[in-house]
């Protein structure tokens, strides 16, 4: 398993331009597969446009204690991009002015940001109903200063969404690194002890499943039952929901697809599984994504491809929801990942 990000390794795929070229050429330019935009036209679907803004997903930085093989962020210990306190203040200004229901904090490992706890506490003082933190679990054990995170989450009624690719060690460690599974289990037990994931508690703990390879996720509900049964039986762990997320062909997962000669077949599976019903509910219609430097994107995936919002408003400092809502959502062939089968979003399936 790699210990460095693509960026630190000077991998050609750390260039977003190169990734977009790959996603638009080859099988998508020789007529082998239809481009996403033409697929929408073929199904007489309108171009994607924003609906009511409900979720502001804030990526506070790309630093992470893990270097996962499938990471679309290319996060890792060597990534230094980090949101400034000033930009966090801009986020809070926007929250005070707009009625956003949910804040979704992501990274990297958002907990590694030195202002993380301050930021969460400040968001709690606004009218936001729900604060989601996308925690990789192992961060809770990574350093003594993070041991108190479960209590901090509890005090701030944070909704935890954590990646756990599988309920067995082998597949989890192959995707996320040696030792990640056993650390994740310990962290889940700590969260359970704090009251998370219990049926009689309002402290929500959800898990994210994403396939450990070049295949699409199976039925979300069936996988949730399998996870619940296995984690309870083997480790006495409880959680609320499982979200099945499709791996998008971006960054390290794209690198893996190409290196393993699975790229064309994977893209064909995504295109074949295109579900027009999933298009209506893709997350970019109710979400805005904020980069560490305050730039705005239609979703976290477009952020990683540097596809900025097609609007005169591109930065938090100029935030104007009315103008932003008039934009057309930027698409490329990676969007097939969110419309395959039952669809995929940061909250799992969409159909």
């Amino acid at each position, binding site marked *: 398993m790699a210990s460095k990000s693509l960026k630190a390794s000077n991998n050609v795929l750390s260039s977003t331009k190169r990734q977009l070229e790959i996603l638009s050429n080859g099988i998508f330019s020789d007529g082998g597969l239809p481009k996403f935009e033409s697929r929408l036209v073929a199904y007489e679907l309108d171009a994607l446009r924003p609906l009511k803004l409900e979720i502001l997903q804030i990526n506070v930085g790309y630093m992470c204690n893990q270097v996962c093989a499938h990471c679309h962020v290319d996060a890792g210990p060597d990534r230094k991009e980090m949101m400034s306190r000033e930009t966090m203040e801009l986020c809070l200004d926007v929250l005070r002015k707009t009625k956003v229901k949910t804040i979704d904090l992501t990274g990297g490992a958002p907990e590694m940001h030195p202002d993380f706890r301050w930021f969460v506490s400040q968001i709690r003082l606004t009218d936001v109903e729900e604060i989601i933190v996308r925690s990789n679990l192992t961060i809770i054990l990574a350093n003594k200063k993070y041991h108190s995170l479960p209590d901090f989450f509890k005090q701030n009624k944070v909704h935890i969404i954590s990646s756990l690719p*599988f309920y*067995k060690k082998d597949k989890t460690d192959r995707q996320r690194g040696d030792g990640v599974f056993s650390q994740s289990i310990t962290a889940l037990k700590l969260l359970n002890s704090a009251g998370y994931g219990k049926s009689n508690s309002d402290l929500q703990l959800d898990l994210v499943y994403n*396939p450990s390879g070049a*295949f699409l996720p*199976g*039925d979300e509900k*069936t*996988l949730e039952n*399998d996870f619940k049964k296995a984690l309870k039986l083997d480790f006495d762990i409880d959680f609320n929901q499982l979200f099945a997320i499709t791996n998008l062909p971006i960054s390290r997962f794209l690198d893996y697809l190409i290196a393993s000669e699975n790229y064309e077949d994977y893209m064909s599976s995504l295109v*074949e599984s295109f579900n027009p019903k999933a298009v209506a509910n893709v997350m970019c219609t109710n979400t805005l994504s904020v980069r560490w430097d305050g730039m705005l994107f239609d979703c976290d995936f477009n952020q990683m491809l540097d596809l900025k919002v097609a609007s005169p408003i591109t930065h938090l400092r100029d935030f104007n929801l009315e103008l932003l809502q008039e934009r057309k959502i930027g698409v490329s062939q990676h969007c097939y990942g969110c419309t395959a089968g039952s669809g995929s979003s940061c909250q799992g399936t969409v159909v």
Partner: protein
Amino acid sequence: MKKKYYKSDDLKKFKNITDWNPELGEKFFEYYNSVFKEGSLSVREKSLIALAVSHVVQCPYCIEAYTRDGLQKGIEKSEMMEAVHVGAAIRSGASLVHGVQMMNVYDKLSM
């Protein structure tokens, strides 16, 4: 160009079977889809049976389809290999049990 009888891309064309005989083709796919729905057996169990049978009938298309299907369903490789051995055991057993016939004939013809 190398000519091959089996091309993995042909699996994607399976649905075209309906083109030359829509009635029978559609009946087959309707039947096929009904068979694999959750019933007294779970879809997981059916996938493993299909994988084992795929090996017994030595269908490369089916092997690819049901290995992928198993991965999507979270079936582990140890389970897949055990299913393949079940198929292989029945197949080899079916050969070996004919040894009784050989023994019968041998004994009948021998003094």
